[in-house]
């Protein structure tokens, strides 16, 4: 990371440390809106980090944004930061105007949304934060192929729902909602957006993994049983070693994935990262809870704010099932006896 990028990450981390504590996350999970967190990010121009300067943004890159997404997981930040910034990435990458409003998105294969005569119709489930935001960027099927469209959520019926972490995941129903802006996209573009979105979720998950690891290390120093801190027991040490391994593999996977994305070329980094992080999430959540024992399954403790996010986020967007299918197809094309060649190839196959 360049110094500039490190500075951005540090500033934001400091904001989250100050503004987002356990109680704040609790309150939002009960259905309130954290205006102060939103406001401070807006004031610091963090909402436009990845938007180019000519479009009124801060001129950062996707890699800055992905690094910030790690912090969203690490502090369980309860506002639609990922959603708004990612919606703007979609808009900007397709040449549409970025929005200054709070926004969310729905990019998936087989979305049941259609566009016809300047209006959009369809029902989309699990739209993050829909009830709190103004704009929705969504992939719709047009008469001659896919379109990326922006609609106002004022023109939608929203029924609230949530994921395991009590984050808003709403059902949005559009009935001839007027299009704000639209543009054609190719199937390849959609695949690329799906990959980026998956990368974003991986980054957020890695932050939650980091935090679960940190909390666990700290707890083993504080908690005593049989007259000694529990980190002295070998079976607890085994948990700590496993957690450390998962945390470092996760974090370096994300670093490598972000580096590839920054170079605008990818091989299978997004796929490998996501598959590996889902595995790490399982191991880390289980071990962190096991070491915390009873105190860790109480609502009063903060551990669950990270583990419930891991259990939720791993089911969102393109996950293991999607990527193993892609990988399998690619591996079917590998010439006989050349797996090693395939793995060590430096030529990147997908240009972004």
């Amino acid at each position, binding site marked *: 990371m360049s110094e500039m990028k490190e500075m951005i990450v540090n500033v934001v981390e400091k904001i989250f440390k100050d503004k987002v504590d356990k109680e704040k996350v609790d309150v939002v999970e009960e259905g309130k809106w954290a205006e102060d967190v939103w406001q401070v990010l807006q004031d610091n121009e963090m909402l436009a980090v990845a938007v180019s300067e000519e479009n009124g943004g801060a001129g950062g890159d996707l890699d800055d944004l992905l690094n910030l997404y790690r912090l969203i997981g690490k502090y369980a930040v309860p506002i639609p930061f990922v959603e708004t910034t990612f919606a703007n990435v979609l808009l900007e990458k397709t040449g549409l105007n970025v929005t200054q409003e709070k926004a969310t998105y729905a990019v998936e294969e087989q979305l049941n949304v259609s566009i016809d005569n300047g209006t959009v119709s369809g029902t989309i489930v699990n739209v993050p934060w829909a009830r709190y935001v103004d704009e929705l960027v969504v992939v719709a099927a047009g008469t001659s192929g896919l379109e990326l469209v922006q609609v106002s959520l004022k023109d939608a019926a929203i029924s609230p729902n949530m994921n*395991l972490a009590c984050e808003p995941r709403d059902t949005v129903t559009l009935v001839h909602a007027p299009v704000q802006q639209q543009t054609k996209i190719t199937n390849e573009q959609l695949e690329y957006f799906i990959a980026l979105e998956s990368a974003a979720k991986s980054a957020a998950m890695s932050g939650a993994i980091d935090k679960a690891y940190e909390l666990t290390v700290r707890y083993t120093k504080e908690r005593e*049983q049989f007259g000694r801190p529990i980190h002295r027991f070998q079976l607890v040490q085994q948990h700590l070693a496993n957690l450390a391994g998962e945390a470092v593999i996760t974090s370096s996977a994300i670093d490598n994935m972000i580096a590839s994305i920054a170079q605008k070329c990818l091989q299978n980094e997004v796929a490998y990262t996501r598959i590996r992080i889902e595995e790490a999430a399982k191991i880390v959540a*289980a071990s962190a*809870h*096991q070491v915390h024992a*009873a105190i860790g*399954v*109480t609502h009063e403790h903060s551990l669950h704010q990270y583990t419930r996010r891991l*259990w939720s986020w791993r089911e969102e967007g393109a996950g293991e099932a999607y990527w193993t299918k892609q990988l399998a197809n690619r591996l079917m094309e590998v010439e006989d006896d050349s797996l090693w060649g395939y793995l060590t190839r430096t030529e990147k196959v997908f240009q972004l």
Partner: protein
Amino acid sequence: MFSLPTVQFTDEQEQFRLEVRAFLQEHLAKGTFKTKCDSWLSGSDPAFSKLIGEQGWIGLTWPKKYGGQERSTIDRYILTEEFLAVGAPVAAHWFADRQTGPLLMRFGTEEQREFFLPKIVKGECYFGIGLSEPNSGSDLASVKTRAEKVDGGWIINGSKTWTSNAHDAHYAVTLIRTEPLGEKKHDGLSQLIIDLHAEGVTIVPIKYLTGEHHFNEVFFDNVFVPDNMVVGTLGNGWKQGLAELAFERSGPERILSTFPLLDELIAGLKRQGDAAGMKEASKVLSRLWGLRNLSIGVAKVLEEGGEVAIPAALVKSIGTKFEQSIPEITRLLVRTYPRLEAERRIDRFMAESTLHAPGFTIRGGTSEVLYGMVAKGVVGQ
């Protein structure tokens, strides 16, 4: 190694299983209850417990003079399996049926048996388990809650924590220091039955990570407990408690807490005609079978009064890991979106299983502590 008996069910037992199953299916259809994962600990429903009591299905193995049916341990095993397989809400009477009854039968006075057992059998009297304290979890023998002798009884001061369902329970069997802590921390501990509605008892809810009210902190401020509520021998509480553990650790509830999810997974794969997924899922059945053999074998030995502490610890440590694996296996075979309020059963069972899974390998003694016991046991053999 340990050898455990194999159990062949008799025709009468098969018949009994079908009878229980038909009853539960009927009530499921009627909406008396809703299938839930982890229902034996988190599904407390006093009305349902009373219904089960009316059937004669609480205290099934106990003597008739206390309201029991004098049926075999294997019959009880069958009954319990059927409850768990449909995720019936049996938590309210669970501890009284599984632990308190057998404890009183073994160590209790005739007066205690006559007073408590008939009420338990009716599904009207529930018990909590008051062992853990804030600073005494795995190191249970370090408990500090103490009793001072007074005329006709004891005065209790201190607190217990993580007491599951104390808010629905009438009494708790507690592990209390009746002599000041001496050289050996395992000495001077006694088992006392405390009336949870007595003066000086305060029950403070502890919210589970889902926000649900599951367990509690129970405070004792000069609570009077009469002499006749001491169970067994004064100062022998540790040993008596250990005897309970084999019952506590080896039952089908250490294998089947997430069975409703497995059931739904197999049904889903079948509907989708997903042969490859079914092939993966089929491996799970062989693990389940292996564990069930062990668990039933332990039940059989327990009935005959044999020693099974080590195999019981193995059922719990391997079984609870198995239960935890079901949501992890499911999510890789079918697409689910876990949500506690979901309409799709598989999504709801995924949510219940995932959110409750961390507790499986903690409650009733952590896996780490059990591994230590097993290792000591096999080395000592």
